[in-house]
């Protein structure tokens, strides 16, 4: 549904979508992508560690995943601050309305994901997961990877595609 809104807005406002990415900070979008995908890598390592019953290693990987994941809202904060100061808002065109709508929606889901990672970090620290039983950790990792996939699409839609 969210992506349908993007495509409908795009075909109805080709000029806005042609020039829209020029005012976005590509380095911010790129940094977010690199942090999120690196955070995803850490969760892969965490799941692999728990499969070998290496709880301490798994905990460290989850903490690293959280730190890299937290970089996303931090970068986003500075990016949005820059847009506000430079008048890049929804009044500038439909492209920016779609941008704020989809990326802030994604940010909300990343926030849920980070809360999930904090929870599984605590559970891993208390020894709740073993090589025999780690479905909770795996579920949190899968959710986290889905946010990666969605961001790959959003990054391409708003920062690259014209």
């Amino acid at each position, binding site marked *: 549904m969210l992506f349908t809104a993007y495509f409908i807005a795009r075909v109805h406002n080709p000029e806005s979508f042609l020039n829209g*990415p020029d005012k976005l900070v590509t380095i911010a979008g790129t940094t977010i992508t690199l942090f999120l995908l690196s955070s995803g890598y850490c969760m892969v390592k965490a799941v692999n560690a728990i499969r070998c019953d290496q709880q301490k290693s798994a905990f460290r990987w989850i903490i690293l995943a959280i730190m890299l994941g937290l970089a996303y809202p931090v970068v986003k904060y500075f990016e949005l601050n820059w847009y506000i100061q430079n008048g890049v808002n929804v009044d500038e065109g439909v492209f920016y309305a779609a941008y704020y709508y989809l990326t802030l929606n994604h940010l909300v889901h990343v926030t849920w994901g980070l809360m999930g990672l904090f929870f599984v970090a605590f559970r891993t620290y208390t020894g709740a997961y073993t090589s025999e039983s780690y479905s909770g950790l795996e579920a949190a990792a899968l959710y986290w*990877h889905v946010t990666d996939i969605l961001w790959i699409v959003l990054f391409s839609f708003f920062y690259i595609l014209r």
Partner: protein
Amino acid sequence: MIGHTEKIWFTLMALTILGALLGETGNAGWPLTLTVVALIFIKGGIVIDHYMEMRFANQRIRNVLRLFITLVPILVIVSFAWGEEIRRLTTLN
């Protein structure tokens, strides 16, 4: 030692930087559009198969995720090629 996961991570980093460079230098047109859809398909596929390990999972679940990263690029191409027609079809008056 560089293992399989590290190679996957490095590939994703390289493809992301390639995409960013395209975003800064690319002009609108078919070459950019097709490159972007290829990047979505490849990067999404890597995350699904290697990060999420869906290549070892139930194929129905894998296909649902694969459908998403296939459908999105198709819609990008369709909206680029037939934008005018879709605009007419989705106009209320």
